[in-house]
C-alpha cells in the first residue's frame, strides 16, 4: 500500500505535478469559496476561456504561455467588471460576449501553429504531468500571492461580499474590492490552467467550496474544508491518473465531483438522504 503511494514519487514529473496541482488546488479552494458565495462561477468560466487568446499569442510569438494567459485573464476580468458597471448590461450578458469572443479568437490563433491539435488539447484539458520546475515555481508563486491577499483582506472581502452598501458606508473600499475579487479569480484560474485546462478550471473553482458549504457552517470552516477537499481531490486524482492511465485533469475533476456527490447525499445536516427522510415526517423549510 505504502509502496504504491511512494513509488510514483520516484518520478520527477510526478513530484512536479503533485506540487503544481496542490498549489493550484489550494488557491482555487480559497478564492472559490467567494466565487460560490457571490455566484461568480460564470466569471471564472469567462476568464479561463478568454485566457486562450493570451496563451495563443504568447505561444505563437515564443513568449511564456503563463504570462500571456495571466495578462489576458486579468484584463478580461477587469473588462467584464467595467462593462457590467458602466454599460447597462447584465453581468451574464457581458460575460457571455467575452467568453465566446475570446475563445473563438484563441482557437483561430492556435490554429496557426504547426502542432495545432496537440497544443490546443493541452490548453483545453491541461497537461500537468509535463510541467517544468519553472512552471511550478511561477504558478506556485501566483497561488501563494492569491492566498496571501485573501487572508490579508479577509475582513474586507467578507464584508463587501455580504453587504456592499453597509461595507461602503463603513469605509470599506467596495469599488476596489469589486475589481479585486474578479482579478484574483483570473489569477487563480490561470494558476490552475496547467493542471486541469481551460475547460475544467471551473470545476476546481467551484466543486471543493460547494462541497465544503454542505459540510460546514461558518466561512472560516468552509475555507479550511474547501482546501482539504481540493487537496484530497488533486492528490487522489493524480494517483488515479497514474495507475489507471487516465488523463490527469479530468481524473482530478472526477474525484472532486465524487466528493461533492457524497456530501450532497450524505452531509450530516444538509445531505439529501436525511432531508428526504425528514421531509416525509415534517417540512424542513427555513424559518421565516
Amino acid at each position, binding site marked *: 500500500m505504502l509502496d504504491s503511494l511512494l513509488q510514483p514519487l520516484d518520478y520527477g514529473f510526478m513530484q512536479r505535478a503533485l506540487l503544481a496541482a496542490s498549489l493550484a488546488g489550494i488557491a482555487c479552494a480559497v478564492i472559490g469559496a467567494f466565487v460560490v458565495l457571490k455566484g461568480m462561477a460564470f466569471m471564472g468560466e469567462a476568464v479561463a476561456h478568454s485566457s486562450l487568446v493570451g496563451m495563443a499569442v504568447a505561444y505563437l510569438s515564443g513568449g511564456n504561455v503563463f504570462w500571456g494567459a495571466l495578462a489576458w485573464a486579468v484584463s478580461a476580468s477587469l473588462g467584464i467588471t467595467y462593462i457590467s458597471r458602466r454599460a447597462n448590461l447584465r453581468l451574464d450578458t457581458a460575460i457571455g460576449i467575452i467568453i465566446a469572443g475570446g475563445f473563438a479568437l484563441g482557437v483561430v490563433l492556435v490554429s496557426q501553429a504547426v502542432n495545432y491539435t496537440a497544443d490546443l488539447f493541452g490548453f483545453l484539458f491541461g497537461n500537468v504531468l509535463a510541467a517544468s520546475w519553472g512552471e511550478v515555481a511561477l504558478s506556485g508563486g501566483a497561488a501563494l500571492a492569491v492566498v496571501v491577499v485573501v487572508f*490579508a483582506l479577509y475582513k*474586507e472581502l467578507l464584508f463587501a461580499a455580504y*453587504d456592499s*452598501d453597509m*461595507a461602503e458606508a*463603513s*469605509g470599506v473600499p467596495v469599488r476596489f474590492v469589486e475589481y479585486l475579487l474578479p482579478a484574483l479569480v483570473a489569477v487563480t484560474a490561470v494558476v490552475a490552467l496547467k493542471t486541469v485546462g481551460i475547460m475544467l478550471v471551473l470545476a476546481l473553482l467551484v466543486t471543493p467550496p460547494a462541497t465544503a458549504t454542505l459540510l*460546514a457552517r461558518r*466561512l472560516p470552516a468552509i475555507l479550511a474544508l474547501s482546501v482539504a477537499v481540493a487537496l484530497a481531490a488533486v492528490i487522489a486524482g493524480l494517483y488515479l491518473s497514474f495507475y489507471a492511465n487516465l488523463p490527469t485533469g479530468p481524473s482530478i475533476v472526477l474525484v472532486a465531483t465524487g466528493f461533492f456527490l457524497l456530501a450532497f447525499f450524505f452531509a450530516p445536516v444538509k445531505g439529501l438522504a436525511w432531508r428526504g427522510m425528514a421531509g416525509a415526517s415534517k417540512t424542513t423549510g427555513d*424559518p421565516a
Partner: protein
Amino acid sequence: MSSVNGVKPPALQIEGLWTGYNRQPVLEDVSFQVAVGDIVGVIGPNGSGKSTLLKCILGLVKPWRGQILVLGRPSSEQRRLLGYMPQVERVDWDFPVTVGDVALMGRAARRGLLRRTTAEDREAASHALEQVGMFPLRQRLIGELSGGQRRRALLARALASNPAVVLLDEPMAGLDATSQHHLLDIIGELSAHGATVILSTHDLSCVSSRCRHAACLNRRLVAFGKPEDVLNEQVLNETFGTHLLLVHGDGQAYAYRHHSHESDQPASPVPAGGKERTR
C-alpha cells in the same frame, strides 16, 4: 466641533438637498433639522426617496446640490458617527456568517483597513448584541433566524460602532406586532441614551406613537413636525397621492392601502394620526 456661541449643533442638518439616479431627481430641495436624541420617522410611498435620503446621509448616494451636516460637520467627515441598518431584502441571508460575525462587521468603520479585530471590538459587538437581546443567539447562522431576530441582528451591527446617529431603513416592514414593539422599545432606549434615530417606514401608527418628529416625504419634503401636527388628512393625501385613501371613522383617520407594489399584504387599515389606537 463647530459649536457656535456654545450652542450644540443639531444631530443632523439637511439644507436644499437634491439628488437622484441617472439624471432623474429622487429628492428635490429637501431641508430639515434633527436635534440630538430625537426620533424621526420618515414616511412616504414607495419611490418617494426614503431610502435614498438615508443613503445620501451615509454618503452612498452623492448629493447633486445642498449639504448634509452631522453634528455640525459635513456627513462625509462623520461616517464613523453613523450607524446604518439596510432593508432586510438587501441582505444575503444565506451567507455563512453568524450573528456574532455580523455584529463584529459593525466595527469595520472604527477599525479601518488591514487592522485585526481587537478585544475592544469584540466587547463592543457583544455589548451591541446585549442591547438588542441577541447575545444568547450569537453563534447562530443568520439564515436560521426569525424575521424579528434578523432585524435585531442588523440593528446590533448598526450599534456596534456606538453611533451618534442611527439610520434605519424600513426596520418595521414585515414584522409582527410583538417584534415591532420590541424593536421600538430598543429604539426608545437608544434615544434615551442620547443617540439620534432616523427611521423610514410605511407604518403611520408607529410614527404617531413612537417618533417625536415625522418627515413626510414624496420627493420633496411635504411636511416636517410633531406627528400630531403633521399627520393630518391634507398632508397625508399630498404625501401618498393615490396610494392611500383616508377614511374618517370614530374620530380617527385611517389610511387604507389602495394598491401595493409589493403585494405583501392585502389592503389593511392602518391607524393614522392622533392617539394610539387601543389594541
